[in-house]
């Protein structure tokens, strides 16, 4: 076959593929065929595994509802819901007043689950989980404490024998809600941190290497000796890395367990404002884990499409009630009862064209 014949046959094949693709495109149109309802949500990576479980379970109960959730980061979630390219957003850090003001329309924060940010490390010669006081953690991340056998670390860990090695700090490279929660905690317990670095999703870290994502930080800690870093609880547990006990505001060294996180939320319920945007780090409960946080779903109070709005509202209602029972096995802490009640009120406040959706 001449080269042209070959190319022509090849082109014919490709042309056929294109007609298939175009036929596909042609049956596009509205995107919501009759009985099926499709929603898109985007945002925080932290709750992604749980949300995937929720979407799947809810989909089994309501087969005509097809919801997609894609992790693009908390900031991405906020931006997309502001731009109205998705039906709901998700963020670990609550939106700031400035962000809410910049949004065309009123966004409601609905807390869904809780998570813990834990300190994990790679250290030889230590058999039991290390204990850290808040000021020690802040000074390690400030670069003031540089060796593992520093007397201040040993003061909290009398029975451990850390080596005389340099501490390699690992933090997050990219902006993340996890960094926000961690720096929020550090700013509360260390005036030095608050003044030098501050609270941000992407602060100017005084020392350390940046790992990409929770998995990047976990990977770097696993592969390098004498490292310390902060990750979401599930990453430390799944990778069998040790987690440190941290001294909370009541003076107790608390292990980052699911229950300790729920305690932190419950202990902070009284001071949680009406719009449910709150920081619960360094909470006051006796057994509260100090680096805990909510994660939120963001939805417009006034839903443009009544059908989609109803579906969203029903799904969220299911989530904070039935969905919570899937939380623990995936290492998320369920919402305390008082907060569930307040979230219910928020969900009930969603309307479409003036009429409530529930």
């Amino acid at each position: 076959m001449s080269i042209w014949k070959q190319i022509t046959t090849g082109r014919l094949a490709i042309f056929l593929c294109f007609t298939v693709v175009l036929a596909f495109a042609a049956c596009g149109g509205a995107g919501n065929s009759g009985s099926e309802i499709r929603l898109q949500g985007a945002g925080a990576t932290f709750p992604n595994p749980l949300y995937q479980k929720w979407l799947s379970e809810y989909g089994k109960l309501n087969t005509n509802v097809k919801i997609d959730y894609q992790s693009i980061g908390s900031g991405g979630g906020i931006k997309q819901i502001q731009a109205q390219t998705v039906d709901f957003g998700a963020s670990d850090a609550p939106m700031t007043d400035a962000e809410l003001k910049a949004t065309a329309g009123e966004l409601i924060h609905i807390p869904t689950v809780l998570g813990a940010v834990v300190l994990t490390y790679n250290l030889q010669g230590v058999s039991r989980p290390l204990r850290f006081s808040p000021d020690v953690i802040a000074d390690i991340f400030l670069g003031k404490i540089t060796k593992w056998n520093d007397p201040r670390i040993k003061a909290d860990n009398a029975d451990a024998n850390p080596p005389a090695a340099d501490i390699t700090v690992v933090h997050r490279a990219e902006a993340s809600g996890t960094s926000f929660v961690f720096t929020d905690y550090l700013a509360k317990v260390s005036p030095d941190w608050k003044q030098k670095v501050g609270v941000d999703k992407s602060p100017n870290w005084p020392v350390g290497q940046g790992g990409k994502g929770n998995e990047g930080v976990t990977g770097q800690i696993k592969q390098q000796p004498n490292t310390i870093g902060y990750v979401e609880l599930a990453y430390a547990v799944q990778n069998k890395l040790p987690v440190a006990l941290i001294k909370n505001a009541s003076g107790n060294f608390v292990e980052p367990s699911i229950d300790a996180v729920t305690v932190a939320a419950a202990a902070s319920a009284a001071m949680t404002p009406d719009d449910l945007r709150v920081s619960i780090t360094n909470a006051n409960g006796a057994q509260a884990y100090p680096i805990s946080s909510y994660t939120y779903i963001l939805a417009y109070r006034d839903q443009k499409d009544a059908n989609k709005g109803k579906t969203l509202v029903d799904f969220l209602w299911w989530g904070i009630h039935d969905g919570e029972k899937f939380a623990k096995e995936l290492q998320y802490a369920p919402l305390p009862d008082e907060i569930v009640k307040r979230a219910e009120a928020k969900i009930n406040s969603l309307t479409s064209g003036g009429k409530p959706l529930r």
Partner: protein
Amino acid sequence: MKRADQTRRAVSAVMTSLTALCTLVAVGVLAIILSYIAMRGVSSLTLHFLIDSPRPVGEGGGIGNAIVGSTILLLLSSGIGVPLGIATGVYLSEFGSGLFASVVRFLVDTLTGIPSIVTGVFVYAVIVLRMKHFSAFAGGIALALIMIPIVARTTEEMIRLVPHSLREGALALGAPQWRVTLGVVVPAAMSGIATGAMLAVARASGETAPLLFTAFGSRFFPRNLNEPIASLTVQIYNYAISPYDEWHAQAWAATLVLMALILGINILVRFMTRRKF
């Protein structure tokens, strides 16, 4: 034999073995990476995995919808990117002596260095924000923009390398210039152009960031181009950044599937553009 001759031969022998060594290094690195991926992922490669859609962690699931999605995105982006790239390359090589052509050349070169995320955000701003939703169509455009400079560059280089005698012969036979280009020069450069196209396809198929802003992602099999669509790279990304070993294994397995897909396309295109003289 003179000393100089001996040295020259020795140098030649040394260099020959060095180039063989280079190839060995490259193939060796590929083997290392491939075996690592296979080791981590082959256990998840089942038929079920290739057909099913994703499930929550602990329930298995698969990448069937992602395979379909990636194929559609590749077809769409190649359909836009490859012809445009070849046309630009042909323009640069055939009519490429003026100021405008120099500008085009520089801009195409610069386009090769843009991080894919910038391209993704650009398409997001121009298409997704206007349409107020993510779509496979936007994803295809973003990938096409990534492909164009690679195809254009290689096409121009390859066409320039076609011996003038071929052109002159065709012109002497009375063919108009466009026929010479389309009928003689481009087919002569076809294998090089195909290389460029394949490199572009491989590059586009491995991109995640632009797709996150344009095609988004989905758990379902695609219905049309106007909606978000799943893709292998986004699915790999989702699984790889999670804490679960099961999802990690699926990410590695999906990588193997992606590589097999690209290899398949590569072999197919090479077969179709082979020269039989």
